[in-house]
């Protein structure tokens, strides 16, 4: 184990330079995101993820945000276990009827100011499952949505871009209130 630790220390960081083109995009997004988080909230941005009917594909790319290549936490973004600690609700899937109440309860448990991001085609429009008896439809049919990030699933860098856009809009409007977009 010590040899791996030593090698990891000796090597240059894998975080940004690992992947190809994505790295440059992530690098460019990273700094703007961190400043915005500081300016808008004075601290990092806390996210609570809710799967409201996803096929699990979107979850896989959200997991990727936490891997050392994208390494969300160094950008001032963090996932929280409880909605009570969250600024942003990241919601995936065509809201199924069976998840509607849980989504509403989690939304109510999230203190203001809060933002809701609909992640993935299903969350944005119901996706391929639109019209099913089992689905309510897009997230916006259940809770107010501040930002839509399309894709099936959206790539990690596209998710990062979305979070930057959200913070940028929030900080431009200067208001702390989540609903001011």
């Amino acid at each position: 184990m010590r040899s791996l630790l030593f090698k990891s220390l000796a090597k240059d960081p894998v975080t940004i330079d690992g992947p190809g083109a994505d790295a440059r995009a992530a690098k460019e997004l990273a700094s703007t995101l961190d400043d915005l988080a500081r300016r808008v909230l004075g601290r990092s941005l806390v996210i609570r993820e809710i799967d409201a009917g996803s096929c699990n594909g979107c979850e896989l790319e959200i997991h990727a945000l936490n891997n050392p290549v994208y390494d969300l936490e160094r950008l001032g973004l963090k996932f929280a276990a409880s909605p009570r600690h969250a600024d942003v609700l990241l919601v995936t899937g065509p809201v199924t009827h069976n998840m509607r109440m849980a989504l509403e309860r989690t939304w109510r448990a999230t203190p203001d100011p809060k933002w809701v991001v609909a992640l993935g085609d299903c969350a944005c429009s119901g996706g391929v499952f639109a019209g099913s008896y089992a689905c309510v439809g897009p997230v916006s049919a259940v809770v107010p949505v501040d930002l839509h990030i399309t894709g099936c699933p959206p790539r990690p860098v596209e998710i990062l871009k979305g979070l930057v856009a959200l913070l940028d809009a929030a900080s431009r409007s200067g208001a702390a209130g989540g609903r001011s977009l």
Partner: protein
Amino acid sequence: MVRRSRKSSKHAGAAPRSWPRRVVDAKAWVAQAEALGRGEGDLVALFGEADRVHMAVRNTAGPQILTLAVNDGRFPSVGSRHAPAIRLERAIRDLFGHEPIGLADTRPWLDHGAWPLAAPLSKRRLAAAPRSPTEYKFLPVEGEDLHQIPVGPVHAGIIEPGHFRFTANGETVVRLEERLGYVHKGVEWLMQGATVERAATLVGRVSGDSTVAYAFAFALAVETALRIEVPVRAVYLRALMAELERIANHLGDFGAVCNDATFVLIHAHCGILREQVLQASDAAFGHRLMRDCIVPGGVATDISAENIRRLKALVEAIGPRFRELVTIYDDTPSLQDRTVTTGTVSGDLVRRFAAGGYVGRASARDFDVRRDLAYAPYEKFAIDVPTLQAGDVDARLRIRLLEIEASLKLVRRILEGLPRGPLRAPMRAAKDEREGVGLVEGFRGDVFVYVRLAADGTVARCHPRDPSWFQWPLLEVAVKDNIVADFPLCNKSFNCSYSGHDL
């Protein structure tokens, strides 16, 4: 002690195993259910239609499907004679309104009382009987100083929703009862009358982590139905994608289990290796998870010489770095202490439930579709099927590690032997009704897809069955008598699918 058997699969030949289907009477249906109850053969699938029910089994007579007409809305329960069928029958009742005669559990399973109609897949338009989704009678508990811990459906991590009702005596889990169905999206209803292309996009989104395995099984089912011969280059590319999906998922699970045991170093490095596999897949096939790449008749995208070189280099680079992580896992007693003898499942239980994948193989169930019901191109390769005995978290993890090694070799051999040629056979319209089955070894176990096409080529019925149906119940057994804190570890070592199960 790792046992590896490569007994060449009894069913050589590239033609996908055909699944003869015959209509039976109630007596033969009950006899088959009782045979399963005695441990003769495996229950592979149990699913309904508006006017019939189907039971897919695999026994000494080979794979086959029994069909029983349902005239008065009832059919003899298989679940009352063979436990693995219980939840499947509760789902049939919810979706088709057919009552399994003799099934003790009368509670709905997928229907939480929130749908706008009842029995959505039945012919009769039944008005909904709305209930509060929280109204669900969990099994009663007696005994002092027992307390219940409700967990979910929204969980602390980034994970699919499901409810886990723990009954604990202090720190020890006395019972875990699962409640699923939260992400039920009505996939089978949406596929009724759909074109094959539309159904393919739906099947590829039943479970995002297994989109290749599902597309593969669906394609095999359609090709069997329409007797389409897939070009050999496409067949090799399908196996390449399936093995890349397996490697990426196993790397993710290896890291996640160590992370749940608070050992972040392996989690971080597995995250890097997994990301490299996803990026190489993205470059080669245009999608990180390789979604919509396998299509009925062949594959949608070709792979360039440059990407073949990149994948060959990736496989060479990952091997040694992955083995270094395995050494660290072996050399860390604190990790072993958490995984060894935690979440044990007996060999008898995995055989009774015909539990596939690492769940089965970690408890000595020696079954892998790529070897035992070989489908193209796997009959061309010697498939190494490692099994262990212990059936605990450590064994389920080690099976994944052995499978990563085997899949890295397989990817290398597939790339070396990749033949030239077309990517897709033309789709053929049949003038009459056709049906077919696809069974594929997904990373989590065998994915079964039955499809019947109407004369006009649209989907009359399509039933995808996720391997989790026969793994979720075993998780309830695995956590018994373990400490509550070890549940995340056990759960991650199973990594069952919620969306694949809920459909």
